[in-house]
């Protein structure tokens, strides 16, 4: 009896909060016909927004993957003062509001900011792609680190030491021993990073200036379609594109999931 009650509670909550809303957006996007939805996502403005989103992702993911692996190695293998602080800083983007991240960059690179002078030398950071890249890097920093750290802890250093004893160079050890051991964790982290980059809204909203057709990403496009242009079906159609990416992400997460022993 209680088993059924628990099952009903858990699944009912998930259905009402998650499944029905997401399913309904698919329904609404196509309720005016497939062509209408297609028109909404194939307009020049929507395509540009999608391209910009993919560009930000393409820059951020490789950087945060490499930096993430280095940071994970430093956190697990390194012995240096301030390691606890480093740990906290790496986690910070997970707990911090994206709006705060956006504002911090806005104040740093904006008028009167410490690096506000860059704009006078022709380097535009704010309301341009560089600022949006920085915002995306900030919010998606922790994912690779957080996935790789526990695996590095678990595998220990025995094999690495053995390889070193046999005369392997440090980079060889990393490429032949460490990297194969952490590759699934890296893949998992990369998928999470990608999802975060594509979906980022709050921080990019502030630093991009939301210039239509210029610094508008797909999530920003969704919001302006809905809130300012009152083109709800356009917003739903673009949402479906993002939701499909999210569903692909969830499937990939299953594939790369650490196997239970």
């Amino acid at each position, binding site marked *: 009896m*209680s088993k059924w009650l*628990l*099952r009903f*509670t*858990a699944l009912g909550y*998930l259905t009402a*909060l*998650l*499944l029905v*809303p*997401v399913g*309904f*957006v698919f329904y609404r996007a196509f309720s005016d016909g497939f062509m209408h939805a297609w028109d909404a996502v194939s307009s020049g403005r929507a395509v540009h927004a999608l391209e910009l989103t993919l560009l930000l992702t393409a820059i951020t993911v490789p950087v945060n993957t490499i*930096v993430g692996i280095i*940071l994970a190695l430093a956190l697990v293998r390194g012995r240096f003062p301030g390691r606890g602080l480093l*740990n*906290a*800083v790496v*986690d*910070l983007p*997970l*707990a*911090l*509001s*994206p*709006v*705060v991240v956006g*504002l*911090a*960059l*806005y*104040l*740093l690179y*904006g008028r009167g*900011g410490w690096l506000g002078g860059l704009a006078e030398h022709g380097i535009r950071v704010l309301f341009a792609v560089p600022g949006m890249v*920085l915002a995306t*890097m*900030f919010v998606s920093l922790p994912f690779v680190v957080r996935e790789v750290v526990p695996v590095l802890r678990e595998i220990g250093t025995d094999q690495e030491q053995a390889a070193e004893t046999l005369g392997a160079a440090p980079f060889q050890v990393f490429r032949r021993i460490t990297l194969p051991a952490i590759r699934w964790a890296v893949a998992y982290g990369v998928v*999470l990073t990608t*999802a975060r980059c594509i*979906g980022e*809204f*709050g921080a990019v*909203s502030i630093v991009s200036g939301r210039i239509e057709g210029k610094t508008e990403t*797909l*999530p920003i496009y*969704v*919001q302006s379609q*809905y*809130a300012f242009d009152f083109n709800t079906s356009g917003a*739903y159609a673009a*949402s479906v594109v993002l*939701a499909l*990416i*999210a*569903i692909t992400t*969830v499937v990939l*997460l*299953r594939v790369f999931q650490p196997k*239970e022993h």
Partner: protein
Amino acid sequence: MGYLSIVVLLPLAALVWASRAGGLDEFWSQATQPEAIAALKLTLGLAAVCALINAFFGTTIAWVLVRDRFPGRGFVDAVIDLPFALPTIVAGLTLLALYGPGGPFGIDVAFTRIGTLFALLFVTLPFVVRAVQPVLLELDQEMEEAAASLGARSFAIFRRIVFPNLLPAILSGVALAFARAIGEFGAVVLISGNLPFKTEVSSVYIFQQVESDNGTGAAAVSVLLLLISLAVLVGIGAFRRWRTRHDHV
């Protein structure tokens, strides 16, 4: 390290600097604007309620996923990650489509605190589930069987044996959900309607201040949010260290 300084630390330093550029009095008067205080109170209240609801439903969902067997369990398990993968603005829009004006069930919670809470619950769903699930998988069922053979009822077994073992995981999941709910922006910006003193949360307030070119006011409230985030992280870290010291498993 250089990367971290440029990408994370330097902007935050600039934020703290800007918040007190007009002196401490100015900082204080900006942080204690009635609208800012109302937003902060609402944010903390909603995040607390959201964390509590997550503690209950998150644990229940984790339990059902680990201990129950039913067709489609793998699918449900995968779906839990969806809020992490779905852009937050889409999350807000999906809820608004279903539970907003003109929704199919005639339920309209748009521009209310309940609607805002829905959005927060959506985006924070995975935290407690994913924290509790691995612990529940590892948990030895022998103790529960022993208690059952000694005549304990199932609720007593849960309360006396399972729950104490899960509590640390529940708490760390709840803390992360709380921190996330405090800072959430994308999911609430559409559904809350951003009515000052009513449904406007701190992140939205900060955004509005930036839009109206009040950088100092935005920075003051941001610093408060930054401090809350840090406190939550330090709290989780300290709790973990305390556990490893007092745990001999």
